[in-house]
């Protein structure tokens, strides 16, 4: 680490390349922090701190590290301080070799802690499949793919898809999450399939959505038709405007397809007279962290079009029309209560 005392040349990059703070700047930043947290801090001290901050990019960078340390405490905000002190005291006694901690692991995966906890509760074979998938999206992310034959696929939040185009077949494997498919006709006439662990669906020139989780696969058809063959060999043809759920053991009776299953690729969630609980579950898929709904309001009926990637906006819309109030005890913790 280069010594950085005294005058420092201005940072070379344009903000992209942050200046690495030296020990000296960090010492100064830490002592400013201690001064600013005091209830006795004066206006003159605050001004002196601002001057210090503006004096060099290294100071600004050192201060960013101080803020990053404070952010690590965020999950404890609003919790009992005495309990936190006791917990930290117990944690200090252990071996100091926790670089392979959960949150560090979550970083390795490029997931938040909530995402990591999600994988932790998924069956391992599915995790393995999802992890080696060709296309993946994180929570809140959507993606549009055009395949070699012109088929368009939209990948919804938190999904994993593999594509196998071979001589006699076009095959998509959905390991987790949801896709919307608009198939193109193939010059070679190869059949088009979407497979999940519960079975496979053959598209008959069409537009349809597949949603897969640990418990079942769900198919909504919007144009033409799709044929399901589940793992046990049961066959079911699903026509435009229809929907079916299936598992390895069976296929549900046909129901009406839901518009919502087509709307998400336009970045919206459509509620068509559904319980609040169901809408929140749908919105929660785009949002790391926790959203809880109090039982007294869970069954309120909702109707409307809500932005998928903007939970704050969606909740504000709901708060305006329903007798509910939104609580945020923690930055990643939202709970919906009766007003």
């Amino acid at each position, binding site marked *: 680490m280069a010594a950085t005392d005294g005058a420092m040349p201005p940072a070379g990059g344009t903000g992209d390349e942050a200046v690495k703070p030296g020990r000296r700047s960090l010492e100064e930043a830490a002592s400013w*922090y201690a001064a600013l947290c005091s209830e006795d801090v004066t206006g003159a001290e605050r001004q002196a701190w601002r001057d210090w901050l503006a004096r060099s990019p290294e100071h600004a960078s050192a201060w960013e590290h101080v803020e990053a340390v404070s952010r690590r405490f965020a999950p404890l905000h609003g919790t009992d301080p005495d*309990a936190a002190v006791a917990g930290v005291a117990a944690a200090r006694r252990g071996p100091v070799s926790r670089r392979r901690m959960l949150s560090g692991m979550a970083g390795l995966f490029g997931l938040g802690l909530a995402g990591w906890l999600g994988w932790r509760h998924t069956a391992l074979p599915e995790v393995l499949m999802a992890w080696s998938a060709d296309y993946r999206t994180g929570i809140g992310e959507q993606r549009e793919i055009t395949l070699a034959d012109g088929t368009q696929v939209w990948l919804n939040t938190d999904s994993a898809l593999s594509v196998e185009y071979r001589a006699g077949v076009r095959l998509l494997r959905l390991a987790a999450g949801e896709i919307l498919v608009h198939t193109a006709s193939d010059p070679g006439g190869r059949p088009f399939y979407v497979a999940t662990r519960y079975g496979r669906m053959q598209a008959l020139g069409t537009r349809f959505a597949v949603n897969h989780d640990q418990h079942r696969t769900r198919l909504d058809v919007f144009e033409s038709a799709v044929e399901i063959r589940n793992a046990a060999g049961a066959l079911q043809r699903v026509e435009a405007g229809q929907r079916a759920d299936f598992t390895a053991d069976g296929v549900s009776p046909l129901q009406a397809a839901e518009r919502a299953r087509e709307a998400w690729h336009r970045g919206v969630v459509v509620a068509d007279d559904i319980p609040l609980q169901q809408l929140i579950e749908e919105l929660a898929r785009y949002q790391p962290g926790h959203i809880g709904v109090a039982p007294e309001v869970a069954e309120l009926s909702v109707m409307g079009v809500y932005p998928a990637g903007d939970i704050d906006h969606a909740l504000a819309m709901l708060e305006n029309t329903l007798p509910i109030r939104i609580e945020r005890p923690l930055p990643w913790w939202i709970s919906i209560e009766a007003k």
Partner: protein
Amino acid sequence: MNTSEYASPPSVEHLYLDHHGWLQGWLRRRLGNASDAADLAHDVFLRLLAAPKRFDSPPEARGYLRTMANGLCIDLWRRREVEQAWLDALASRPEALEPSPEHRSIIVETLLEIGDMLGRLPQKAASAFVMAQLDGMPYREIAARLGVSDRMVKKYIAQAMLQCALIEAGLEA
């Protein structure tokens, strides 16, 4: 599967099929609990997925998996200890709410992480820093709780923040 060398380095899927059952049994004996054993065996393979390793023989793979699993057992015991300390302190508060398991696990992770960062500091400096960070408790109140002067609290806060910022900046492990 009991050959001494792998013909080609095995994939994580392959390792999972070969060793998952054995590893889970090993963990069950060590922990005396089937559900913790299943969780940790799961974690071992998740970690392997995140940071793949190349093994030339099954004994080598087993040795590595066992070392990793052992480290996770130690982590688990430590996590339980921290969780218990936190819950015990919480139980003595009349207004405390029972947190959900998800909430709890994130809090315990945070406590462990902060405990690591503050590991080298005196106990009073660590406590002062946690109190100041959590609710912005006034220095006077922290001082009264710890039985030290206000000036000492300010010194503790600066010292603790420096320790954490050095770790954050990668200047100290």
